[in-house]
């Protein structure tokens, strides 16, 4: 990672070890951004402008430490993509409380902690972009995904309220709601269920990582400084 005097933009992306997070990290690196990523485990992503932090996004002290390291290392933070998320496909009657705790810890608490710490850095420069991750499972009210959908509903709510709270700091907060993208997150769901879900979209196909990147790019554009508190669902939900 280059020194603090470097004036290239810096972005923090959570959940970069694999899947969409990894894809986004690679794309922003290709474009010359400095990228700070994190996941519970080590990453094999090697790049001069990439720094990886091993942490649980629900661990407040660890998130605070990472973001202070970002401030010291990059000297600025232009954008945050709160991609880290976990799901659980199960009937509510079969879902232990521990599963709910685990999912909310990562999806809701993690997103909140990163938003808070990112806004502290961004607010000092009076500019910043935050993109949270919602899901179509919330508006589609998917059976078997009560806890996951509820956690992402909380993320949408956070996005809307934080948009107001962070607006005076020059920070926008938006969310992207992907349709199923073939990643580990949907790997455990049966093909039959996936087909039913996709049939409810206006555009009936799997999402791609490029679709998600496109929405992130829109929110991150300098010209999008009047766009905040919005959730864009892919696929026409």
């Amino acid at each position, binding site marked *: 990672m280059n020194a603090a005097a470097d004036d290239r933009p810096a972005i923090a992306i959570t959940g970069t070890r694999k899947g969409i997070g990894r894809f986004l990290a690679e794309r922003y690196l290709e474009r010359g951004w400095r990228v700070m990523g994190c996941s519970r485990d080590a990453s094999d992503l090697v790049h001069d402008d990439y720094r990886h932090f091993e942490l649980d996004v629900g661990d*407040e002290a660890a998130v*605070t*430490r990472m973001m*202070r390291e970002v*401030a*010291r290392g990059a000297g600025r933070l232009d954008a945050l993509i709160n991609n880290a998320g976990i799901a659980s496909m199960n009937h509510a009657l079969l879902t232990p409380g521990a599963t709910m705790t685990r999912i909310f810890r990562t999806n809701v608490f993690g997103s909140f902690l990163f938003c808070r710490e990112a806004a*502290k*850095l961004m*607010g*000092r420069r*009076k500019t910043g972009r935050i993109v949270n991750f919602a899901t179509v499972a919330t508006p589609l009210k998917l059976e078997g995904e009560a806890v996951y959908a509820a956690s992402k509903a909380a993320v949408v709510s956070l996005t809307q309220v934080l948009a107001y709270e962070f607006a*005076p*700091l020059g920070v926008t907060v938006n969310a992207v709601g992907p349709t199923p993208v073939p990643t580990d997150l949907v790997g455990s769901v049966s093909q039959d269920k996936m087909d039913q879900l996709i049939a409810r979209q206006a555009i009936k196909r799997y999402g791609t990582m490029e679709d998600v990147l496109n929405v992130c790019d829109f929110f991150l554009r300098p010209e999008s400084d009047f766009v905040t508190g919005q959730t864009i669902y892919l696929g026409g939900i």
Partner: protein
Amino acid sequence: MAMLDYETALKAVRAGVAEINDSRAPDAQVSLDEDATLFGEDSPLDSLSLVQVVMAAEGYLSEMAGIDLVLASEAAMSRKRSPYRSLRNLAEYAVEMSEAEVTQ
């Protein structure tokens, strides 16, 4: 985590106030005096500006001393005697928080 001394904490708090002053009108500058009011009836800061001072002070503590503290918190806000009353009180609170971190 390293121990934080009062002088370093005060330096970080002053830097935080100075940073906020950069975006304030000349007649709305906040004094850098140790006993200048940050929070309370006589404060020149609205609540958001106060939070920005505290956030900036957190950042300067991290930069100057490598100490990562969360000073802007509900716990601090709800104290009977606010740790945000003056630059001195905020610096003392930072020292108190760093000592609590070390003993944990």
